[in-house]
């Protein structure tokens, strides 16, 4: 939830209605029913926090009378600086608590077709919008949580108004401001100040041992292009470079502190890639795989790697993945394991929802000439070029190319991880039994 930083410094609040919906646009809502709907909308909040709401006579719409929260139905320009826009678009707004004349005012767009309950086509449920707007009038801002009545978008009626209860996110928000019903007032010593959430239990930081985790030595278990950033996984840690090529930190982060959902003791990632269709992130660890939504593992994982249907030429099931990437050249997913690779079209799913290998696979890694046949991992980067990572070097196959003779190894440390240029040394052995001589990196 999000709080506006403003609240009422009292718990007995008054409200009034200064105008009602135009009957021709909202024929099913006589004023008595509007009063009843609004009363129940306030009750949703007073059920969750020690607040009371009393209705006062509305009168002619004077801003200086009518209690704390003045409700009105207005059209277009209505003298508060925030005109409505006719049917659709914006539905309502409310002003946060405070000492201003306008504080607490709640305005509904009279061009909407307001209704009560049900899912009538083209109408807007007054109760649902009123609970939301009164949340603002009590000090809450918009929330991105789902479910929460404080989400900014109207998503249809919330249901039975007699038994409606706020979602947890909203209850916590209102209780943060006004305390728990029958319980303590918020804020401890000074109830006027919002109480801060309880801090999580302390978790001592375990500093990384630089002698063990030196990014400049290379040898990464997995490398992945995730949301335009490149992640280098090694052991239980990873480094991360942003889109502009800068390293987020010279020190590695712990995989389990960032990627939530791996079982304790997970200390090696075999391969990772970001799925194109839904931006999920797929992790391969041993004979299992996980699907992550953002940084959290989805429920139901891990699942067995065998669901991917990869069989070796020998007929044996694949029990681990060395590398995984989506080749930007054709949008297909490639998984590599022990010298063989499989191609997948992820728009075609098998019975369990996992893609199945295309016919004609596996094929030998040696088809990717000029690069190591046993790579650590692969990513698509830049203009769609395939980058093959092995030890502390990487090889670039230009977009669409699978068979390029002159592929020079480059330094991962220097080009990706802000490491110093090493003194001149011999180049790595040609990965596939050299077709030609190799010079050292500086020659």
């Amino acid at each position, binding site marked *: 939830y999000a709080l506006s930083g403003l609240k009422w410094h009292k718990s007995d609040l008054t409200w009034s209605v200064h105008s009602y919906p135009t009957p021709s646009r909202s024929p099913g809502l006589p004023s008595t029913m509007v009063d009843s709907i609004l009363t129940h909308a306030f009750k949703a909040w007073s059920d969750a926090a020690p607040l009371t709401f009393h209705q006062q006579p509305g009168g002619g719409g004077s801003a200086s009378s009518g209690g704390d929260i003045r409700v009105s139905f207005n059209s277009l320009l209505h003298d508060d*600086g925030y005109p409505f826009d006719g049917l659709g*678009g*914006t539905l309502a707004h409310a002003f*946060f608590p*405070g000492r201003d004349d*306008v504080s607490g005012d709640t305005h509904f767009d009279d061009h909407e077709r307001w209704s009560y309950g049900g899912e009538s086509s083209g109408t807007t449920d007054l109760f649902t919008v009123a609970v939301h707007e009164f949340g603002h009038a009590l000090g809450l*801002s918009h929330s991105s949580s789902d479910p929460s009545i404080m989400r900014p978008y109207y998503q249809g009626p919330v249901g039975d108004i007699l038994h409606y209860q706020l979602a947890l996110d909203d209850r916590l928000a209102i209780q943060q401001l006004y305390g728990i019903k029958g319980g303590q007032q918020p804020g401890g010593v000074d109830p006027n100040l919002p109480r801060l959430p309880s801090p999580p239990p302390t978790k001592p930081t375990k500093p990384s041992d630089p002698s063990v985790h030196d990014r400049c030595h290379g040898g990464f278990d997995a490398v992945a292009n995730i949301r335009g950033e490149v992640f280098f996984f090694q052991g239980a840690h990873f480094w991360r470079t942003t889109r502009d090529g800068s390293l987020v930190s010279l020190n590695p982060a712990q995989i389990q502190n960032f990627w939530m959902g791996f079982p304790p003791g997970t200390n090696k990632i075999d391969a990772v890639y970001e799925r194109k269709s*839904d931006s999920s992130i797929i992790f391969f660890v041993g004979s299992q795989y996980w699907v992550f939504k953002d940084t959290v593992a989805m429920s139901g994982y891990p699942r067995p790697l065998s669901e991917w249907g990869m069989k070796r030429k020998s007929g044996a099931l694949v029990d681990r993945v060395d590398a995984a990437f989506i080749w930007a050249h054709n949008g297909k997913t490639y998984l590599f394991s022990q010298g063989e690779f499989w191609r997948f079209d992820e728009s075609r799913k098998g019975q369990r929802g996992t893609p199945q290998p295309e016919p004609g696979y596996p094929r030998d890694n040696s088809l990717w000439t000029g690069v190591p046949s046993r790579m650590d991992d692969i990513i698509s980067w830049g203009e769609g070029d395939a980058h093959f990572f092995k030890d502390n070097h990487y090889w670039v196959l230009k977009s669409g190319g699978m068979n390029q003779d002159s592929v020079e190894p480059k330094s991962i440390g220097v080009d990706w991880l802000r490491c110093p240029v090493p003194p001149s040394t011999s180049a790595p052995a040609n990965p596939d039994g050299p077709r030609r001589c190799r010079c050292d990196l500086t020659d």
Partner: protein
Amino acid sequence: SAMPEQYSRAVDWLSRYGYLPPPDPRTSKLQTKEGIEKAIRVMQRFGGVRETGVLDGETLKLMSTPRCSLPDIVGGEDMLKKRRRRRR
């Protein structure tokens, strides 16, 4: 992909709901492409749709969904401050 008119409307929408700083008529400052992409991403994350940074169909649909007219990102330009400035 979004048409130029949709793009212009979307920038206006992003400004109105707090994802982009409001245009400054004194400087006619242009929003940067990166700034707009970032604002779209924040809007997509807030709205619970796929975070692409571009005005795809899902994002345009969410932008046309009826909603409350308070901004989602309340910074220095919240309603009360605007009102005070307007009064001055």
